[in-house]
């Protein structure tokens, strides 16, 4: 066996693409390429930067907020409804964005509220994605009657308005962060299930699945190590949109007074708290949390849009 001798004839005519014409020695990992494609749009780049900043602010709230709005000892009720830039009468601290009806520093309350809003949105989004992806994968892979039943449940779920189901569930379950996360998961898993199923249906017909079966791999291995990674792009896009939805939905529920308790105000609850004063000239209590909510949802959606453009093979430039 003279492999070495035949090398000239045996070696593939096409030079290995790996270090192709582009030159740089740095191996082009899928992530690197993805990132550079993502940042091609300036709007998306700004949105991503803003989103990262929002997340950092929310995470760092306990350390950067001027006041702990949950600590009743730190809050002076006498300072209630002070306009932006006012100074506290007792402690002398400056309320840059004013105070709300309970005398809480609005900036601090917003930072903490952002924390809760994002936590609820991300937690429900991730759990709903896990459940939905699992259900969708199984439906697509097993097929037949199992798939029929699962997808009819999904259709049924999707035919109801999300807000209606969430309202009913929260009314039954009661208030609390955990309850609202459960409600949001219930509302959202079906979107993920439908998305994953449709891409898994395409993927499972592809030859690499047949090849994996011919290698003697088990069903769960094929499903989770081969089919699922190929279904991720659409799933990630749906996930960003759904997290934005979850944040908005949570704000809606809190605004309606069935969401989070007064002691843990999210952005929606802050807006709701200031709503009654909005017409009496004390605009800041609702407006600033409103802007924060708007920016959060907008940046998530912009990032999601760009993700969709980059990940959709049909839009490849």
């Amino acid at each position, binding site marked *: *066996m003279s*492999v070495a001798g*035949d*090398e000239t*004839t*045996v*070696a*593939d*005519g*096409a030079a*290995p*693409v*790996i270090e192709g014409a582009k030159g740089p020695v740095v*191996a*082009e990992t*899928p992530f690197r390429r993805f990132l550079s494609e993502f940042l091609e749009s300036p709007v998306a780049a700004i949105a991503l930067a803003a989103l990262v900043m929002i997340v950092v602010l929310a995470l760092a709230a306990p350390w950067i907020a001027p006041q702990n709005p949950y600590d009743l000892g730190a809050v002076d009720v006498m300072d209630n409804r002070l306009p932006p830039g006012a100074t506290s009468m007792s402690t002398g601290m400056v309320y840059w964005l004013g105070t709300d009806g309970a005398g809480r520093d609005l900036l601090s309350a917003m930072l903490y509220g952002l924390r809760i809003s994002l936590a609820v949105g991300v937690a429900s989004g991730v759990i709903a994605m896990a459940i939905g992806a699992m259900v969708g994968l199984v439906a697509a892979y097993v097929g037949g009657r199992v798939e029929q039943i699962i997808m009819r449940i999904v259709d049924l779920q999707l035919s109801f308005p999300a807000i209606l189901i969430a309202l009913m569930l929260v009314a039954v379950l009661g208030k609390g962060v955990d309850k609202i996360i459960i409600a949001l998961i219930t509302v959202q898993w079906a979107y993920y299930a439908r998305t994953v199923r449709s891409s898994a249906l395409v993927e499972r017909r*592809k*030859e*690499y699945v*047949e*090849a*994996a*079966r*011919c*290698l*003697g*791999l*088990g069903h769960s*291995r094929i499903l989770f*190590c*081969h089919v699922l*990674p*190929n279904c*991720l792009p659409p799933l990630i896009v749906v996930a960003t949109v759904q997290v934005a939805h979850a944040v908005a939905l949570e704000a809606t529920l809190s605004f309606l007074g069935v969401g989070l308790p007064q002691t843990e105000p999210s952005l929606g609850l802050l807006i709701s708290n200031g709503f009654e004063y909005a017409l009496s000239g004390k605009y800041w209590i609702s407006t600033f949390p409103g802007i924060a909510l708007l920016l959060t949802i907008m940046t998530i959606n912009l990032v999601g849009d760009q993700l969709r453009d980059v990940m959709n093979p049909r839009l490849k430039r």
Partner: protein
Amino acid sequence: MIVPSAPVGGSGDDVLVVDDLATHFFTRGGVVKAVDGVSFRVRAGEILGLVGESGSGKSITGFSILGLIDQPGRIVAGSVRFNGREITGLDEPSLRALRGNRIAMIFQDPMMTLNPVLRIDTQMVEAVQAHARVSRAEALERARLALEQVGIPAPERRLKAYPHELSGGMRQRVAIAIAFINKPDLIIADEPTTALDVTIQAQILYEAQKLCRETGTAMIWITHDLAVVSSLADRIAVMYAGRIVEQGRAADVIGAPLHPYTEGLIGSVPSHNKRGEPLVQIPGMTPSLLSLPKGCAFSTRCRYADAACRVPPPVLSLAEGRDVRCIRPLTGGRAA
């Protein structure tokens, strides 16, 4: 590019004996007899070329051997004996232990058979660890050796690559390396060179043949290209409409075809015609498996056919391993 002075393979024992195998698909339109009474045997180190047009049932034959027939299809009759052991009707875990381990498969399109989102090393290590309890390092070493074996330069670098970073020929080499990695007794190659350039095709044929000779692995090479198989295979079986119409040693089948269909196939290869002369072609097209002609399935396209062909033709065995399914086998290219 034939291995010089290679001994003709197939000196060993029977690795695979397929006897009267029938795989039918029960569709709404009726029963599709995709494979209908196929019998052949493959010996260790032997390459069997399974030739036929698309829809003749050659791929389904391969999948039937692996027990990978999905609904609404089913193996309805016949037996597949692998190393003397009946493997039709085995339960899923036992079949899974065979697949990729003792019987491996190579597919047509190397763009499709490798998972696009997993690195080559991930996929190869997975193939090893599915059948052997070895450490990741050991599996990686086997993967590297396997890549080296199929003539891939700088295997360490290729291991870390994603499939899209490799050329088509390189990917098919990786697929072949994965097939050989667990040192199987039988490899079923389903048109592995059809999607490749002719130059790459020749290299792949060379590698596959060399590996079979070296390792004593038996191979079934499924193809529609008689030219490919004539230089590669030790024996050839020609399939038509779910049945093997002729089989025998490659030189015999190509040099002195017995079945009119084989004769037509050989005539359809351009190189067998003189320049300027019109190509010989087989008129018509493969009949629908739902409405096969009565008797000989090829009778509607056969230029020698007459009323006697309306009855199902028997299999005539002219010599040891030289079979034809025709009532009037050809001799010297003319009807007897």
